């Protein structure tokens, strides 16, 4: 095969195999270039992904003190890195659960007038045990154990049976 020569140059005699070699060499170079780009992109992508948080999971937290809540009321408190809800029923009994709505993650609250746990974002309702009863939430809220020690109310994750 004769390749076209530039003015002033001699025509070069090349076999198809040699041209393929040159082409595959160019492909190799391109592959190496792509790989070098990947070595640049990989650290960038890893940098953008946040490092895993340490000690995210908490098993127990101080929710409040006795007398802080009147009967038929509730409050949110910090349970590790997430909000949780403490409810004092009209009977005086305490209930606690995660305050993160299972629908789209808003923070729920206790509504004394309906005696239900309610999410203001998309109108989801749960009963005082955290079970989803109406609206869009697909699952129940995680219920916690409540323990009263002296004047303080502690909340902990339920122990697996």
């Amino acid at each position, binding site marked *: 095969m004769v390749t076209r020569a530039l003015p002033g140059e001699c025509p070069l005699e090349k076999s198809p195999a040699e041209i393929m070699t040159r082409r595959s060499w160019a492909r190799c170079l391109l592959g190496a270039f792509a790989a070098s780009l990947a070595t640049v992109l990989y650290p960038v992508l890893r940098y953008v992904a946040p490092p895993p948080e340490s000690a995210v999971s908490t098993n127990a937290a101080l929710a409040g003190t006795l007398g802080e809540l009147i009967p038929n009321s509730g409050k949110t408190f910090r349970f590790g890195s997430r909000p949780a809800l403490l409810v004092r029923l009209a009977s005086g009994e305490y209930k606690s659960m995660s305050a993160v709505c299972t629908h789209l993650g808003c923070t729920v609250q206790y509504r004394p007038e309906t005696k239900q746990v309610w999410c203001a974002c998309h*109108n989801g309702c749960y009963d005082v045990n955290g079970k989803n009863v109406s609206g869009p939430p697909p699952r129940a809220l995680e219920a916690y154990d409540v323990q009263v020690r002296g004047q303080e109310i502690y909340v902990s994750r339920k122990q697996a049976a």
Partner: protein
Amino acid sequence: MNAVVRVQTWIDERFNLAESLAPLREKTVPIHKYSYWYLLGGITLFTFLVQLCTGVLLLLYYRPTANEAFESVQNITNHVQFGWLIRSVHSWSANLMVFCAFAHMFSVALTKAYKKPRELTWVTGVFLLFLVLGFGLSGYLLPWNTRAYFATKVGTEVAGRVPLIGHMQMVLLRGGEDVTGATLTRFFGLHVVILPALTVGMLLIHLLLVQKFGTSVPVSVLTQWQQHPDQRKEMPFFPNFFLRELMGWYIALGCLVALSVFFPWELGNKADPFSSAPPGIKPEWYFLAQFQTLKLIPSRILFIDGEVLGILGFGLGAGLWLGLPFIESLLGCRRGRWIRVGILFALAYLMIMTIVGYMAS
């Protein structure tokens, strides 16, 4: 020779400005009963320019950390001279930009201006709308108030419910598992660097394509012109249409300032990640239709969580919208008429759900 002519000659000798601007001088804009709709794209561009200017001014005082963001916006509003005006204009202009972008897009859709050869003009335009909505979502969090906090929590949770890649994209957006100061820093970077850069690039392509293919004429007007060629009317882009556009910009500026002065943008209360979402909480009007849909959709449909189905539906809708010109050409002329029904349905759905969402307690 006066100074202006001397400067013009100096530039012309070096850059041959007269030749570069020649296409602009030949550009014309059709005159018909829908001509006023042509102004909307330009007004959207104007509101974007207002956003750039007021955004740079806000950057002088804003501090993007969870501890300082709210207080710095409070400082801008209460202590910096005319800070309340700059912030209010920025917020109102953002809303006007979204409104004009939607109006421009539906006017293009209903007059079928996206058809061959303008398919890519449509695609870049829809991408610009997505970028504008991205600006809305990222900028909304920056004052770090209660509404912003929960809107971001829901918005990023929506991204997190997308099957397979959802959790990864939620963590990337939030800078962790929860909405924290890390999210604020990320959204700040997105809002002031990444989104503006992408928008400017996409805008340039969009404007180049508009310049390349000229202004589209609605089919009904074109048919009329073909039957009665004497009714065909056009005006030069420069200066005739340009001056009309400037008048539109000036009116938009007047509206912006009036809205900012008479209805200054509220700041609300500082976000508390451990307090409940307050009753009556809603997103901005341009996310109300999606918000209302997620509110009404049942918790489970067959074996899928309702919200996942809703989010997949939004994604499918956005994909179909993006591919509108291609779908129409695939369907062919006769079945393509259903496209207009689809566009009107989308418009009616968005409007009705927005009104229902606005009225809902």
